[in-house]
């Protein structure tokens, strides 16, 4: 596998204080990299920087060999997918929520409908299609959130503890399903979690972040 992402000498500051320092980190094409660490160690900062929602002060991030900062921000954001801890669904139907990112990209209607059908079925939420998204259970809402992002077929998927608010059984089931989907789609993924056990179960490889630095890279 070739390097999909290469980070070197990265410094990200938030409120003028270092929030993340990474000497070197690579992610291979189609790899699922799990990043584990305690709360406040810089995990979310890493994802927001990758999504270009936070600027970085020093260092270099190469995406398929191209410097991140030289790419247009909007074009870059349309190549990635970002999933937060909470589903953050909008006050509209499940179907409309899933079409959001496709509408942003001005996807033709037929292709939009095809992808929505595909992911509703894939994630077993077809029966929720017309339901108001705000009336779903936590597990259902997070499935809709995943469908909304996966329908975009992102080149890089950034997962910020997406199932943290769910009960252990639902979380475990969804993680297994998601891992299987990502492996089938060969989607390069960075998954952050505070739980090292979850990290090693989900990721092909795990790194541990502590106080804004990579502490170790267990194999």
């Amino acid at each position: 596998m070739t390097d999909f992402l290469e980070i070197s000498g990265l410094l990200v500051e938030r409120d003028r204080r270092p929030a993340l320092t990474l000497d070197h980190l690579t992610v291979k094409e189609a790899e699922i990299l799990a990043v584990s660490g305690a709360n406040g160690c810089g995990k979310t900062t890493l994802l927001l920087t990758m999504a270009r929602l936070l600027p970085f002060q020093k260092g270099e991030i190469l995406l398929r060999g191209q410097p991140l900062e030289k790419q247009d921000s909007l074009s870059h954001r349309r190549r990635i997918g970002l999933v937060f801890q909470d589903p953050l669904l909008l006050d509209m139907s499940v179907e409309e929520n899933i079409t959001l990112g496709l509408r942003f990209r001005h996807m033709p209607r037929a292709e939009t409908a095809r992808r929505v059908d595909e992911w509703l079925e894939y994630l077993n939420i077809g029966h929720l299609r017309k339901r108001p998204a705000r009336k779903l259970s936590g597990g259902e809402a997070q499935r809709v959130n995943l469908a909304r992002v996966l329908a975009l077929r992102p080149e890089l998927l950034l997962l910020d503890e997406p199932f943290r608010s769910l009960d252990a059984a639902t979380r475990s089931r969804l993680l297994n399903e998601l891992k299987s989907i990502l492996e089938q789609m060969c989607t390069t993924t960075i998954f952050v979690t505070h739980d090292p056990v979850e990290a090693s179960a989900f990721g092909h490889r795990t790194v541990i972040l502590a106080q804004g630095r990579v502490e170790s890279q267990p194999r």
Partner: protein
Amino acid sequence: MDWIWQGFHDAFNLLLHGDPEIGFITLLTLRVSGLATLISLVIGLPFGTLLALHHFRGRRLLLGLVNTGMAIPPVVVGLLAAILLWRSGPLGILNLIYTPSAMIFAQVIIASPVITGLTVAALEQLDPRLRLQLLGLGASQWQMIALLWWEARLGLLAALMAGFGRAISEIGASMMIGGNIRFQTRVLTTAIVLETGKGNFDRAIALGLILLSLAFMINYVLTLAQQRRQSRS
């Protein structure tokens, strides 16, 4: 006390049989306050969005000014507008004093801070991570703002209602720079003051009922829209 009931009786008679002057006053009130609210929305919505979503130097000062503007007395606005629009004033060349346009100008100054301030409040109540989520889904800045407006639409409708309420109910500014001229700048509020002063309680009550009904009908329609969307969510 009979004169009060007689006033209501005569007022209903006036309303039932139609009075051309009252009709003119009602339509002019709707035109002036409706246009003023629309212009205030065009100013207040983007300005409120800017203040809610961006942190820049001077933002707190601007927020303080907007909040002060929400409570500004209409007579002070009338005085300011009169100074600006007076024939020898800075904008006197526009020849707007004692015209409906001058009244719209004053009502915009009164309603804009209300719409701006309530827009800021409505947008600041949204989860701040929603912006990141929308941008993460590939939204452009405009697409993100449109969806934030959608999410805050109940609060934005409330802002619109409050802006219209403030515009249609003000009297000081309209009196000072409209002049309360018959068939030219007389609106419901200024006409009520005039008729009450003259002791014409039947006409004053009729005009008061119209003003209340207009305010109720417009706000009721907006409330229905607001509640329908709320019950869907």
